């Protein structure tokens, strides 16, 4: 088991590397660049050149990729000439670089030794000698955002992932709690009113897009009944990170914000789970071993719980992996409807902004979550079905 997990994790490395390489070169292949426009206006060529130099976009692709992955320190050793044209003023705790004001904090910047590192890149260097700069993906540094110039990709993910993850996890939980029992009931009462009801609701749940369901829920429960706030989950504390640790956590406040977005997303998910569970349960209860269990005189409930359920959950577990990865990393539509500052929008916007670092950062995050949740799925399989050996 332990060996299996270690081996699988080692196997992730080439996968993640390939994902990174493909994403990197594919996003570069899209015409245009991050500095084509500032708002509606196009920037002067000079400025674009300057900015590109600052972000190493003038380097050859392989060098950019290498420095992104392993950091500048290992890619290059002298950087002075790379930054000649950058215009920097330092005032106390602030640095003004090419007109952008940046805060000098010791997380991202160090001014004492006479150079400024920002988001892993040396942008100002008083000495001729540059020291190691970008940390690289291998050290968990996803680089600076090209678009949100005061923030790094790590900052953006740290800000938005917790809320997206909460939304995703709660919705999956709702999906499991509603979907699996509904599927079981439908299967056990096949072709009765319960089955038709559950199937009808499931079809509705799958086919009503969250774009419709979300606003409907808002109108009914927020505007008309006034039970829950319209939006703004996560805009103010309490945040998820504190909720298990902080005594006196304001659960009511938290869930009154969470309930509408979670229901909007969870409805569709529970419909998917219900249909899967129903189909697999219908198949399992026709199996010979279920007849054997009945022939033993077991009560029908025991037959279902002990003999049918575990077998019929295997398809549900199968989709749980990819589903978890994609939901945890944010759902654009639901986040937009409820005004949530989630990660979902960055998946889409980073591409149209040609924000290469953010494209790569979000994609890598998704890939890592996906391989981890698939590992989790495999472990679940082995637990559900002893015929599957983890080797």
């Amino acid at each position, binding site marked *: 088991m332990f060996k299996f997990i270690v081996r699988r994790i080692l196997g992730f490395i080439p996968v993640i590397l390939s994902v990174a390489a493909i994403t990197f070169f594919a996003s570069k292949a899209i015409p245009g660049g991050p500095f084509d426009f500032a708002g509606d206006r196009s920037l002067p060529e000079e400025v674009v050149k300057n900015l590109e130099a600052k972000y190493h976009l003038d380097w050859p692709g392989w060098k950019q990729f290498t420095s992104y992955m392993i950091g500048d320190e290992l890619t290059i050793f002298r950087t002075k000439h790379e930054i000649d044209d950058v215009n920097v003023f330092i005032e106390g705790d602030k640095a003004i670089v090419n007109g952008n004001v940046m805060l000098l904090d010791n997380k991202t910047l160090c001014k004492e030794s006479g150079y400024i590192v920002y988001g892993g890149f040396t942008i100002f260097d008083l000495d001729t000698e540059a020291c190691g700069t970008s940390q690289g993906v291998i050290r968990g540094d996803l680089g600076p955002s090209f678009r949100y110039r005061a923030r790094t990709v790590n900052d953006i993910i740290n800000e938005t992932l917790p809320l997206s993850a909460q939304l995703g996890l709660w919705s999956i939980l709702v999906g499991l709690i509603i979907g699996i029992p509904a599927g079981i009931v439908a299967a056990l009462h096949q072709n009765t009113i319960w089955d038709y009801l559950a199937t009808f609701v499931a079809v509705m749940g799958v086919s009503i897009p969250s774009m419709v369901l979300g606003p409907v829920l808002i109108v009914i429960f927020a505007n008309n009944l006034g039970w829950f706030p319209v939006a703004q989950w996560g805009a103010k504390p309490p945040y998820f990170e504190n909720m298990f640790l902080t005594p006196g956590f304001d659960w009511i406040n938290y869930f009154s914000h969470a309930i509408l977005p979670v229901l909007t997303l969870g409805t569709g998910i529970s419909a998917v789970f219900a249909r899967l569970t129903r189909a697999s349960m219908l198949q399992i209860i026709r199996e010979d071993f279920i007849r054997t269990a009945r*022939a033993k*005189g077991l009560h029908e409930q025991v037959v279902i719980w002990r003999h049918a359920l575990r077998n019929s959950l295997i398809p549900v577990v199968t989709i749980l992996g990819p589903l978890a990865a994609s939901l945890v990393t944010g759902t654009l539509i639901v986040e937009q409807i409820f005004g949530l500052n989630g990660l979902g929008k960055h998946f889409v916007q980073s591409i149209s902004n040609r924000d290469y670092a953010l494209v790569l950062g979000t994609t890598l995050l998704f890939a890592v979550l996906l391989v981890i949740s698939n590992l989790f799925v495999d472990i679940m399989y082995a637990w559900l*079905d002893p015929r599957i050996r983890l080797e």
Partner: protein
Amino acid sequence: MGRLLEVNNLQTQFFTQDGVVQAVNDISFYLDEGETLGIVGESGSGKSVGVMSLIRLIPIPPGKIVGGEVIFDGQNLVKMTDNEIRSVRGNRIGMIFQDPMTSLNPVLTIGRQIMEALELHMGMDKTQSRKRTVELLEKVGISGAADQVDRYPHQFSGGMRQRVMIAMGLSCNPQLLIADEPTTALDVTIQAQIVELVQKLQEDLGMAVIWITHDLGVVAGIADRIIVMYAGQTMEEAPVRELFAKSRHPYTHGLIASLPRLDQRSGKLESIEGLPPDLVDLPKGCPFYARCKYRIPKCDKQRPKLDEISPGHYVACHIDINKDSITTEHPWEEDKE
């Protein structure tokens, strides 16, 4: 020996989209304590549905027991409540099935699957039921049983799984064991071992056995009496020797003639031409009419009744092939003495 089971006019049907499948069509038989009854018939003749109807194991819907009674130890199983019939299943009537590969739950250990019946019917706790499970597994010939109880079905061969099924069927010392083609899915050598095992256990425990097979050869050596079923009906019923020596029904006759024999070199086996009738649309007359070599016009019009032609020998046929027919040699007659 007392009467253990009496089945009267049992009728089971499946209500499907294609119509009403008359799977079991008015069968009656009895079984004494400790006796072995063989039920023979080709695939689809209603053997499984027939015995599963006894303990109401058919899926409802689409299935339904539409008529008849099953008197087991003085009680009518058809009329019992769900709770009552559950206390009979696995407890006083054990059952083993055809395919040991699919009849055990793949995700539970074999020990767990045997123990649950013991805990349910005999009120044992975990320790007691585990101890008894090990004993049972040893009794059915699984060596090193103490180490085997916590293994899963896929870790056993087909023959070993069928032994596990037998241990499960016998776990609560049933008065009746129903074996539904327990050897059909197994290799020939293993078939013989399983037959022998059940016979030995029957001697030790004194239960009655209903042994279902589509192969007359399998039950020839173990059954006291044999019922030949066709299209959900009894065609012939007789003590085993009488059946092989003096079978009267053309269908039985065909089955016996299709058995391979060691003393005939010619090698060509006889088979019964044609297919069984559609159970949704049974003919008015004898269901075997279309395939019968001896048929007369009356057979098509009137369904023959099951008549007792000699003590314990029942036949549903309008003619007596031994008298009426042209010369038909009785294939087993001479070896059976």
